[in-house]
């Protein structure tokens, strides 16, 4: 096996795995705090990518500022959606929450498709198609940037969850709702923050993916199902589990893509999920948000 080729696949896989992790972690966070399986989560990724596509030319192709604006937009949208739709749902309305988020997903997806058409678009940034050379390995700058941005986002998330009042409140609610309410943690505010954070992370992932992938209305849906699988593998509501599973998946997919037929690359995650479901269905719902 060619070591350089292998290392290149590994790097690519890590970058994509980190992006997967951002999506999966948001999904797990919303489940942990709101007890909602957010079927519209993938659409926030797509919105982040479209925001990036629209903002970059305006900001003169500058990468980081565009990314920040895209993230802010999706985070804000998350808050709006929370206030409009999610805040009305009760904790016992599990099926209803799925229906509402399904409806939201349909509207966002087809709304964007209606406005921008179903065809894909490429997003250009200041990096263009430049590559970075690390020894003999060559990796495109946008991919490297995506990986670095995702790593930074994780660091920030970890700090938020462990060091800030509002992060600790989220963990408290997801761990023991009754107790958290008893000590006066306002559930609505925490839920709103969780949605903001989750949608912001997901939008960031979409924005970082935009220069790497084709930007299309359906891009979120394909990744969402992968994220579902990852969250199941990691244990629903278990942030670390989802993140680790995501990074591993990115790497495995990338390596498999290098050595196996393309089709099986996509199947890996679902096969893994089925195995997890078969082997430890009881571990499916570790409902706590664990970060340490």
């Amino acid at each position: 096996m060619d070591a350089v080729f292998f290392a290149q696949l590994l790097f690519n896989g890590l970058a994509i795995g980190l992006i997967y992790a951002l999506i999966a972690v948001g999904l797990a966070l919303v489940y942990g705090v709101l007890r909602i399986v957010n079927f519209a989560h993938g659409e926030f990724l797509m919105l982040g990518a479209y925001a990036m596509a629209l903002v970059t030319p305006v900001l003169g192709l500058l990468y980081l500022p565009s990314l920040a604006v895209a993230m802010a937009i999706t985070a804000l949208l998350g808050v709006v959606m929370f206030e409009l739709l999610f805040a009305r749902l009760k904790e016992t309305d599990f099926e209803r929450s799925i229906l509402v988020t399904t409806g939201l997903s349909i509207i966002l997806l087809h709304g964007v498709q209606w406005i921008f058409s179903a065809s894909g678009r490429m997003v250009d940034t200041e990096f263009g198609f430049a590559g970075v050379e690390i020894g003999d390995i060559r990796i495109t700058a946008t991919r490297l940037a995506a990986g670095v941005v995702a790593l930074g986002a994780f660091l920030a998330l970890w700090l938020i969850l462990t060091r800030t009042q509002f992060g600790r409140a989220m963990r408290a609610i997801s761990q023991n709702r009754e107790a958290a309410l008893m000590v006066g943690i306002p559930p609505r505010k925490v839920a709103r923050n969780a949605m903001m954070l989750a949608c912001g992370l997901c939008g960031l992932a979409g924005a970082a993916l935009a220069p790497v992938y084709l930007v299309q209305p359906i891009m979120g849906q394909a990744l969402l199902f992968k994220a579902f699988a990852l969250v199941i593998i990691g244990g629903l509501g278990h942030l670390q589990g989802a993140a680790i599973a995501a990074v591993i998946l990115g790497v495995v997919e990338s390596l498999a893509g290098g050595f196996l037929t393309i089709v099986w690359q996509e199947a890996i995650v679902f096969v893994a999920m089925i195995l997890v479901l078969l082997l430890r269905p009881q571990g499916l719902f570790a409902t706590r948000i664990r970060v340490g």
Partner: protein
Amino acid sequence: MGALDRLTGPLVAAGIAAAIALPFWAPSPYAVYVAINAALFTVAAMSLNLVYGFAGLLSFAQLGFWGIGAYVAAIGVKDLGLPIIPAFLLAGAVCAVVAAGVGHAALRLNRHSFVVVSIAFTLLVLTLARDWTEVTRGALGIPGLGLPRPFGLTPPGDSYYVALAFSLPALGLLLVIARSRVGRTLLAIRQDESLARSHGIAPRAYRLFAFVVAAALTGIAGAIFVFHLTIVDPLILDIYYMQTFLIMVILGGMGSFWGVVVAGILMSILPEALRFSNDLRMILYGLLLILAVTFMPYGFAGWLKARRGEVWRRATPATRLPAGDA
């Protein structure tokens, strides 16, 4: 009881007569084409209603069965050389057996886990459709399917009668179940599982029954649908179908038979009649879904029923216990 109840019989008879005569009064072949979709989608929506509206299981596995039925029938005809009717029956049988296995395991889980497992199941079916190329031919799909043409009518007249010959008996079967004690028991379980158990009812057996019947009917509907399309490929597992069935159930009214039948037919026809683009139609569906779930959780039929409940509430003020006047 109400005027609507007395009218149901004649209305249904008129509806069936109109449906049977449809190819002769439809304005265009396209209208017949839409009617085929309506017939098959209504069965799929009603099956979902049996599982979700009656048994209380939000099952995304319905989409998986829709796809399994489609593939089994196509493979049965193309690769196994089966005649078309046995291939459809095989599709139903395979779905029933798979549903029995999946349901047996998944119905032990709690509500949350059940939903997720049903999604996982459908994703696995999708993966197989895409990647098990030796059998499913992957993304290319299996082309060259077609429904028989016994009457030699203008297309798609014959296909319409094939669809109808399945849909009417299937809906009849679902109506019998819905109106029977089994249907009532499913509603009881959905509303209060503990109370049902205290009455000696084993919820899992009833739910498994609903799950299996719904899977078989949805599988056959999916099979006829792809033979009508003439090709089966992984797009048959597009989440779009599941969303459509769900919206029909929610708007028609969970746990209501006629509500969902009417919603199934109207929602197949209306967007075509209004000539909406697909995107606009889906946006509208999404809005309706959210509005219905938020403001009318039991759909149109549920709203009607609630109004009847109001009549009783007014007739007997709840503050007085009518024990004394017996």
